[in-house]
């Protein structure tokens, strides 16, 4: 197996992937150190009507919003919400999607087929529509957004793993293990899963970017964390009332979404080149 150090070294040789990695590290640091980095941490949640809608200045780097809160500080704290949503949603999608893909790829009987058809049903509905339906029904909150995103994203992992496992099952070393009576669970854990890890890692990185984008869209539609939580999508949505005069309002959250999604996509593409040269940008990103 390629060591993590090898992968990192190769990744850093690719400028785009290195940039992606830097952006993501910055995102994580911003989320962790938000109270330290924020210039006005106290003003994230409170109202200060007197400082309402101030343009960018030395005190307020990206200006203030309609509540008079510092947009720079709010964007930093927003990184926490974004990161939590992305990690938990993609993590849950992994936990649901990968085992289902392993089982359906391995057992090519009616049961495996049934699992794949269920994933097809989820894929047939546009993700954002399904997520809106779920978030709308259950009410706007971070938990519901996470639920909506994980329920809609797992089929991507299932399809990916399913295809890989089907191909792997014909390899001689797998057939040999079957012939020697190695139990299925052990073959899957020791031979199949390590061989599908690379595409899973790549898809996870790209999926993080995609999930953040969808989460922001849902936030924009008012289905994410309720105010005054500093959710990036909602911040952009709020800014519409004050455009074009308060041009700075959407700048910081918009840039943040753009950079973070780009970061995950660049990293995902870079990882794909390093880990899985066979598919080289053949599959479209989602």
């Amino acid at each position: 197996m390629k060591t993590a150090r090898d992968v990192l070294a190769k990744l850093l040789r690719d400028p785009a992937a290195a940039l992606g990695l830097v952006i993501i590290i910055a995102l994580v640091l911003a989320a962790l150190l938000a109270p330290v980095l924020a210039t006005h941490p106290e003003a994230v949640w409170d109202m200060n009507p007197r400082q309402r809608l101030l343009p960018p200045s030395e005190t307020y780097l990206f200006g203030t919003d309609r509540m008079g809160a510092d947009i720079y500080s709010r964007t930093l704290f927003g990184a926490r919400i974004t990161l939590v949503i992305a990690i938990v949603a993609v993590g849950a999608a992994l936990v649901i999607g990968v085992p289902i893909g392993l089982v359906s790829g391995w057992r090519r009987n009616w049961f495996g087929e049934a699992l794949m058809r269920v994933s097809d049903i989820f894929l047939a509905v546009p993700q954002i529509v399904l997520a809106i339906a779920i978030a709308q029904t259950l009410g706007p909150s971070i938990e519901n957004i996470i639920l909506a995103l994980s329920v809609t994203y797992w089929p991507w992992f299932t399809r990916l793993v399913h295809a890989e496992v089907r191909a792997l099952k014909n390899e001689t070393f797998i057939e040999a293990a079957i012939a020697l009576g190695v139990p299925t669970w052990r073959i899957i854990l020791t031979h199949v899963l390590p061989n599908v890890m690379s595409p899973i890692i790549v898809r996870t990185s790209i999926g993080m970017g995609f999930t953040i984008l969808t989460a922001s869209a849902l936030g924009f539609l008012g289905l994410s964390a309720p105010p005054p939580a500093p959710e990036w999508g909602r911040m952009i949505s709020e800014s519409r009332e004050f455009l074009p005069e308060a041009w700075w309002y959407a700048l910081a959250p918009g840039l943040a979404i753009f950079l973070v999604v780009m970061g995950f996509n660049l990293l995902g593409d870079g990882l794909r080149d390093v880990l899985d040269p066979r598919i080289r940008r053949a599959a479209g990103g989602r």
Partner: protein
Amino acid sequence: MPPADANLLEVENLFVSFATESGPARVLDGVNLTIRPGEIMGLVGESGCGKTTLANAILGTIAKNARTAGGTIRFAGENLLALRPRVVANDVLGRRITYIPQDPYGSFNPLFPIGKQMMEVMKWKSPRRAASETRGVSGFFSRYPRARRREDEAALLAMIRTVQIPNPEEALAKLPHEFSGGQRQRLMIALSLLPQPQLVIADEPTTALDATIQAQILKLLKRLAKERGVSVLFTTHDLGTAYEICDRVTVMYAGQEVETAPVEDFFGRPQHPYTVRLLESLPHPERELREIGGEIPALIDPPIGCRFHPRCSRALAECRAARPPITAGGGGHQVRCYNPVRAA
């Protein structure tokens, strides 16, 4: 215990059919095959004649849609088809019968060093493994006793040296892709001999390799098998390869064996018309390439009688009626033909 001169492997009247959409395809239709201890048996025939299916049937790895419909596979006196699959998997496969696959590229898991993978096999299939150790690979917890591990490692290193892999110690830490196809096949030979089996099934082990490498691998396999007294079932579609390595040869045609003979006899005095035509189809500097007219029969609805009769210039009336019985000639030459070619 069977007597010492008994056959190691006896396949008798074996039927295997595949369920297909247009009905069952009788891929093996009453096949007979014997292998004596220490003998290299060549199984030759065109693609699709059932060589690999026969090898897989012996290994118990026939495809899901295949069904063994009758016959016996007797290995050292025991019918493998009647034994419990778990017993076969634990005590026979990988220990007393081992396997060299056709494609050396897929035979190792690409992610792990070959030493680790070979030791994983030795953990379960080492000849030094005592019967008292946990029964099989299906055990949840499994120990690898340290003393045996050391012995197995020594044996592994010695074997890797024997198959002429340079720098054996370093080689063990390398990943499969760092070896050439020929080296990988050498490693597979090493792995197949390490459990000290009685029978090695080599399914076209040189087909995927360069011609120059083929000869080396064949020599190596032959030498090691002869030194150790291991029987080999060697399937190939290449008659030249069979001539190089085999003691006896069995020809298959459309799921049935048609002729079995010691290798010299086989190439010198072929008796079945199919064998004759097969040998004539080899490239020869003094004559034009001759192909066998007609087509390989469909196995879903095969010709009645001798399956070769529609393409046979010597076919008689009875060839269309029933499958010819085995006619034993001198020196272990057996042929299934009503009108065999007899040298004058």
